[in-house]
């Protein structure tokens, strides 16, 4: 038995935010049925082409799609066809949760609004995630991750102190997916206790604003408007990335107290420059931080990053080597914990996926299968779940409902 055994999800999400959330539910044992269509293709099935980097590829051969959709089932269904909407409604009747991340109002326009779904299944839990949420003067506005990163206040405080705001990639999307999963799980607990379902309206902008809450408090209490500050954190010093031996290898060092500074100084062999009085105490050290950073960088650059991490951690200093695309594959800690898993994908062959992102002792989450091919589970969903006959499925197929 798994954590979410018996929970079935009708998953209308696409791109990155929603699918990351429903992949968490799938890893915990929910049956997640992705409803998708070639007519309105999930952008994760053709990311590079969408951005104009490549020609249009095979929709069943997207590495990106496989990374965010493992363990799900796929029903290909054309929701611009009334017969497709009809099938979707029959599916909802067999589900516990419905989730989408379309622009606000799209589900209602398609004929799958909450009041309709509620009539089909009174205790259904419906979660919709959108840029500004479902109500308010900007609810019809378009929103992608960089846009809610900007509108939330996070972009303005991201970046070097002397640079424009930094553009943040997909994690702004995926963390919204985390909140989608979180809200659905809250509603499942509530339904378990009360028997009641409900509608959940999630705002991506509000999700991201919540991740910089203390900046809003500085404004509320002091009238301050926080600015970009690069790698600084308050008066912590030294506090930065320092170069190590090799191509684009770095170590982060974060010193909060004078005691930690003395530990770092000792680890460096107490060089003459480091025992100068202006570096001894926090405030003075912080005032001379640029000079200090330059000196430390001269020391770190002769070390292998991993070796230096070990040396500084032994000395009681918060230090860690940077990890990127290559290191995530080779790092001994990540390997020993086994974050990267191999799955056999019918068209891509052996593929590496990430996860599950947490462990549970009694019901361990797991990656049970690769991402689905487009419409791979049509027969299962239509016949086994909905009880259609093979002839009825063939008819839908011939009518183009399963495109």
């Amino acid at each position, binding site marked *: 038995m798994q954590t979410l055994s018996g929970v079935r999800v009708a998953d209308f999400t696409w791109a990155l935010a929603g699918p990351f959330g429903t992949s968490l539910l799938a890893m915990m044992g929910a049956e997640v049925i992705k409803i998708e269509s070639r007519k309105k293709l999930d952008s994760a099935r053709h990311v590079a082409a969408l951005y104009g980097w490549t020609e249009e590829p095979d929709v069943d051969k997207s590495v990106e799609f496989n990374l965010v959709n493992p363990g799900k089932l796929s029903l290909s269904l054309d929701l611009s066809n009334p017969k497709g909407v009809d099938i979707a409604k029959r599916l909802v009747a067999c589900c516990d949760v419905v989730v989408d991340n379309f622009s606000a109002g799209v589900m209602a326009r398609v004929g799958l609004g909450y009041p309709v779904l509620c009539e089909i299944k009174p205790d259904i839990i419906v979660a919709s995630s959108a840029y500004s949420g479902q*109500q308010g003067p900007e609810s019809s506005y378009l929103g992608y991750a960089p846009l809610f990163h900007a509108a939330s206040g996070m972009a303005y405080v991201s970046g070097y102190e002397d640079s424009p705001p930094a553009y943040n990639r997909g994690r702004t999307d995926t963390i919204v997916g985390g909140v989608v999963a979180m809200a659905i799980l809250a509603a499942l607990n509530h339904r378990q206790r009360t028997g009641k379902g409900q509608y959940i309206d999630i705002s991506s902008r509000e999700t991201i604003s919540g991740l910089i809450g203390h900046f809003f408090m500085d404004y509320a209490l002091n009238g301050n408007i926080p600015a970009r500050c690069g790698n600084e954190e308050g008066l912590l010093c030294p506090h930065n990335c320092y170069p190590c031996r090799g191509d684009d290898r770095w170590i982060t060092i974060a010193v909060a107290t004078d005691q930690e500074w003395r530990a770092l100084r000792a680890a460096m062999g107490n060089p003459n420059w480091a025992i100068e009085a202006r570096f001894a105490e926090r405030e003075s050290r912080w005032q001379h931080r640029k000079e200090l950073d330059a000196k430390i960088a001269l020391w770190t650059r002769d070390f292998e990053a991993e070796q230096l991490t070990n040396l500084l951690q032994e000395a009681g200093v918060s230090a860690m080597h940077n990890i990127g695309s*290559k290191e995530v594959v080779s790092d001994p800690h990540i390997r020993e914990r086994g974050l990267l898993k191999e799955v056999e994908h019918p068209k891509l062959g052996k593929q590496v996926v990430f996860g599950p992102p947490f462990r549970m002792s009694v019901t361990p989450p797991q990656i049970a299968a690769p991402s689905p091919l487009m419409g791979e589970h049509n027969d299962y969903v239509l016949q086994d779940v909905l009880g259609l006959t093979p002839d009825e499925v063939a008819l839908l197929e011939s009518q183009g409902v399963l495109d």
Partner: protein
Amino acid sequence: MSTGGALAGIRVLEVGDMVAVPYCGKLLADLGAELIKVEHPVQGDEARGRGPFAKGHSHLEKSCLFLYLNTNKLGVTLDLAHAQGKAMFFDLARKVDVIIEDKLPREKAALGWDDEALRHENPGLITASITAFGETGPYKNYRARHINLYQSAGDGLVYVGKEYVDREPLQGPGYQADYESAIGACSAIMAALFFRGNTGIGQHIDLSKQEWCLSLNAMYLGKYANGGLPVIRSNPALPFGGVIPCKDGYVMLLIVENHHWQRLVKAMGDPPIFHDDRFATLMGRAKHGEEINRHLAEFFVQCNKEEIYHQLQQQGIPIAPVATVDEVVASPQLASRDYFVEIAHPAVGKALYPSVPYRFSGLPRRADRPAPLLGEHNAEVYERLLGLDEPELRSLRETGVI
């Protein structure tokens, strides 16, 4: 207090400093759980000592970070290093549904803290360890602050673009990776609660913040593991657009689909240059992104960010202002959803706090209470849960246990 929330009736014990565990506790508390925060009797949560502070000067009750992360909680103090304090902690553990904590494995061992022993006495108990690198593996006892965590999870490469190549990798603002990890932990805990509701069985959760954050970036980081090129900072972030200066700040423009491009060209007054064949296709525009950017820069520098945001969005063009905190607070959209709520705190008075990013149709919004003063709820909690009386509490205060 906990009537009506999704987690009504669930009692959580929180032992953690700074951001990840406290934010996880706040998320659970916002959903209706009864949250009991345990702090050290003298300095309290480390966040109490972090600036900025209300009105500038350092004060345990005036840290912006602490005030935000600890709303809707009860606060007790307890010295876990003291034998009696430890005994009281284990007594509390028998009376709760969930414990969330951020102790390193070596710290837990030194305290004699054994989750399975706690579960033996309280079989439905859910324990959640939220640490930088998890409870197993060679780095399990490594200490990490936010910048260490952020850069250990592929995140320095999230900021890509030529302007970053020759500089040190950049961290996310504030405590981004810690905040994000709390969302993963909160989800895992609620999944475990759901399983317990079905079976009565509790369990342990081990969340490595590093693994959670790596997973958030799997779509980029995983390409190399699958034979693709590594994501490096010199990769272009977008074919064109992105952050563009305007008259009073910056806008973020994301033009991907053909119809968005066509609408943008029209909104810019249909400049003849954009009818050039080079810009007719997605691939053409990606190839000539720099040239497009030059034209966009000339156009947007004459615009006011808020005005052009509404003007272009109303024509179906994906754009947003790069908002400062005061502009977010003033946003009519957020105001229409009552995102910022006023909470009065005894030491800093009334202030507008960011609230929750979801609205549940079947649940009332929680009436928020301010972060607890250090030890504010000692008497209430220790009397109600442990049955201690006033003389016993006095003696615990005198010996520094609480």
